[in-house]
């Protein structure tokens, strides 16, 4: 039918012309839809493989570089990345990956993330950090702030207890030697269990920390330095 031909012609020509022009803001939704369609059709999207284990990643990365990078691996197995320190502000250190995702830590305790989706915007965790690094038991309060669906800040306040843990206390495949410290937090909405490995000098050399409701836990392994 003439109409059907015209319709097909329209669709084809629109695929071709979409994005013509010098305005990067126009038709970004369509462009991004076509992009993901193209990816899907050409099999360019990563297939369902599980991320390798921390030990394997650490081996490869250490072999590749001497820089004091940190490996971050999401515990749900969805992704891992290598982040390098890029900025310092007082006691806060910010690390970033090559694709512009960043994590901010205060002496090894995560205080903020950016670009991971459901980002931790800021948090109050100094008291916890002090207990963990001093390898002491005690209690503290943690505050974690996120953006909700309406892009407003919501705060989760949690009562936390820090205790030494045994070998099984670390909630993942431990790569480093040191004292295992476990932080158990009771929040009104979320319960969190972070575990840390602290060396003799009071430095957190490995940790599994909760990032956000959507992302869950991440395993951090600093290399070098």
């Amino acid at each position, binding site marked *: 039918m003439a*109409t059907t031909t015209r319709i097909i012609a329209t669709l084809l020509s629109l695929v071709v012309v979409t994005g013509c022009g010098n305005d990067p803001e126009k038709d970004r939704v369509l462009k*991004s839809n076509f992009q993901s369609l193209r990816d899907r059709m050409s099999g360019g999207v990563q297939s369902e493989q599980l991320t390798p284990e921390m030990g394997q990643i650490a081996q490869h990365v250490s072999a590749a570089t001497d820089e004091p990078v940190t490996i971050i691996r999401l515990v749900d197995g969805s992704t891992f990345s290598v982040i390098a320190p890029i*900025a310092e502000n007082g006691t806060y250190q910010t690390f970033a990956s090559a694709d512009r995702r960043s994590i*901010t830590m205060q002496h090894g305790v995560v205080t903020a993330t950016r670009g991971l989706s459901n980002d931790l915007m800021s948090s109050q965790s100094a008291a916890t950090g002090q207990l963990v690094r001093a390898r002491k038991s005690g209690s503290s309060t943690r505050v974690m*702030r996120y953006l909700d*669906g309406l*892009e407003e800040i919501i705060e989760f306040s949690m009562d936390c207890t820090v205790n030494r843990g045994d070998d099984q206390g670390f909630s993942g495949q431990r790569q480093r030697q040191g004292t295992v410290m476990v932080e158990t937090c009771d929040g009104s909405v979320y319960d969190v269990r972070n575990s840390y490995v602290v060396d003799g000098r009071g430095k957190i050399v490995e940790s599994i920390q909760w990032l956000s409701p959507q992302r869950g836990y991440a395993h951090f392994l600093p290399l070098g330095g």
Partner: protein
Amino acid sequence: MSQNRSFQTRSTSGAKPVHQVIGREISAMAGAIFAVAVSAIVMATTVAAQSPVNYNTYGLPGLIDLPTAEAAPEAELFTGISYYPDSMRATIGFQLLPRLSGVFRYSSINGKVIGGKWADGTYYDRSFDLRFQLVEESPSMPGIAVGLQDFMGTGLYEAEYLVATKAITPTLRITGGLGWGRLGQVNSIGSTGTRPTALIGEGGVPNVDRWFRGPFAAFGGIAWSPRRNITVKVEYSSDDYAVESGSITGKSIIKQRTPINIGIDYHLKNGGQLSLFALHGDTIGAQMTFVTNPKRPNSFGGSEAAPLPILVRANGSAKDLGWTADNIVSNDVRTQLADLLALENLVLEALDLQADTAVLRLGNKRYRSISQAVGRAARAMTRVLPASVETFVIIPMVDGMAASAITLRRSDLEGLENAAATEMLARTAIRDGFSLAPKSQIKPADRFRWSLGPYLHLSVFDPDSPVRFDAGARLEGAYAITPNLILSGSLTKKVVGTLADTAPIPSKLPPVRTEYPLYSKFGDPGIEHLTVAAYGRPGPNLYGRVTVGLLESMYGGISGELLWKPVSSRFALGVEVNYVKKRAYDMMFDFLDYEVLTGHASAYYQFENGFHTKVDVGRYLAGDIGATLTVEREFANGWRVGGYATLTDVSASDFGEGSFDKGVFISVPVSWLIGQPSRDRSDIVLQSLTRDGGARLNVDGRLYRRIRDYHEPQIEAGWGKFWR
């Protein structure tokens, strides 16, 4: 029963088209399914927030046909289609407030009519429902709600009810209620007067004289959820289906053999619902409901890349003023800052660099959140500006106008980078940007933008056809002759479409809007608009606009506007005057004989919880005088839902069917859909467009909508994104 022509919906927002899938010509039934499915595709679906709400065939929380006293979570948007042979209902509903929900419904029934005006044996009907929850359910009290079903219009589904619902056990909920109208037919137990049958005016007016009048009857049912995602429903319906049984239509599509209906729901993880039901012992039907909520995007807080970290100055470096005499350093700084801002898709339009203060004239076409644009610009400034510069004044520009100037101290940025966002807001000053912005330094070559892409004009839920559309290519461009003087145009070439297939509806008023089929037919290719617009700030708290040229597809002329809005005020006043001539149908440079002076005085007020209200009083395109009330709720993430009504001195009989102009709209920011920053929006407008009364000019660039994002109330509401 006269046909209800009171609603015609347009899925377009004038100059900016809806980004939707292109459709193709389809049969009536599939047409409505298409329209609802398009909304479902546009909506992102996520994991449902709480225990699922069951939706009924009318599109509100309920049993099968019957309502319950339940409400959806606040701000929930629910669309659905229910079908049994020869009858289909498509619905779009929204939980406006925690206790108030509304639904728009488009239904089609196949049947022949003895007398009356039905189209080709298929009867299309549009209806509106409202439900208000009087009492929220609690462990000791049932929930109680009152509802108006199909409360304005021809009343095919007209009913009113009072209903109560209670959970007896965690898995069993009981509902019982009293119904009038359609719900008062079976075994009615009494009567509250007689129910009038004549329409008020020309229809389209709430039938207040019918509500809760006439016979009433009892209805009820139970909903049992043996597992979280399955619900079995049994109900006793007081609706005798007189219309569908043929007593009025002459053809029976369903026979009410028993008042008992049974159904089963399956709830999907994303909150959607699939249902099967048996109606009145006579027929089987199915239903699909999709659910989305502005509070649950796919990506909380967006998934855009990380911003630049703040660069903290070395101790004592702020005292170094050696650089100020050196032009090379200043130019270097300017270039470096421009480059860093470009990485964030921001534009350095000008930079006024002093020893201790820097004023940045900022161009932002990327970020919906002004707070986020300012935050990212501030971060870039800390990385590049000499250490002695302590005060940052950032002025985001709107069409060459400086709306507000945001002042931040560098020491605060350094000290509060990792603190709660509210701490930074407390130390931020927002004031009127009038005369504060340095002159733009953008080269002329960078002031031109053009693009070629698809367009789609949808007209849905028409009395004669569920979907009419035009689609094709649109070439548009804009050139900033000076930052405040913008030449822009848009040309469309239709490739395929059915909007031209109707004849203009006869009107007793000058045909100021009803001739759109002629524009669709002859305006191909057509110039949508070609204008020169000048924007400016006549004085403190004042904003002005003058637009000249082919202002919109049907009118050309001159449009002028003045807005008074102080930067921290919730209140604003505006006045707009337009002198326009009707354009020829070929949408080129010719005009027809009709010319009119239109204009409005407007008052705006923004309430605390995001409710924006606006009252316009003035003269409309047909020369009628009247007023429009618009109420809109804007959420902090940019979602807008609202409605408007216009009453003018045109009588209902002159206006024609529908009686007066009204509409509802939903605007979804693209950034919410894709999780990346964007200033685009996806708009769905349902309005009664067929008539010529209360019609306004569609001119681009109206000031209040553009300016309000840059003022204090909106910047503060969206401050959560400052550090994002």
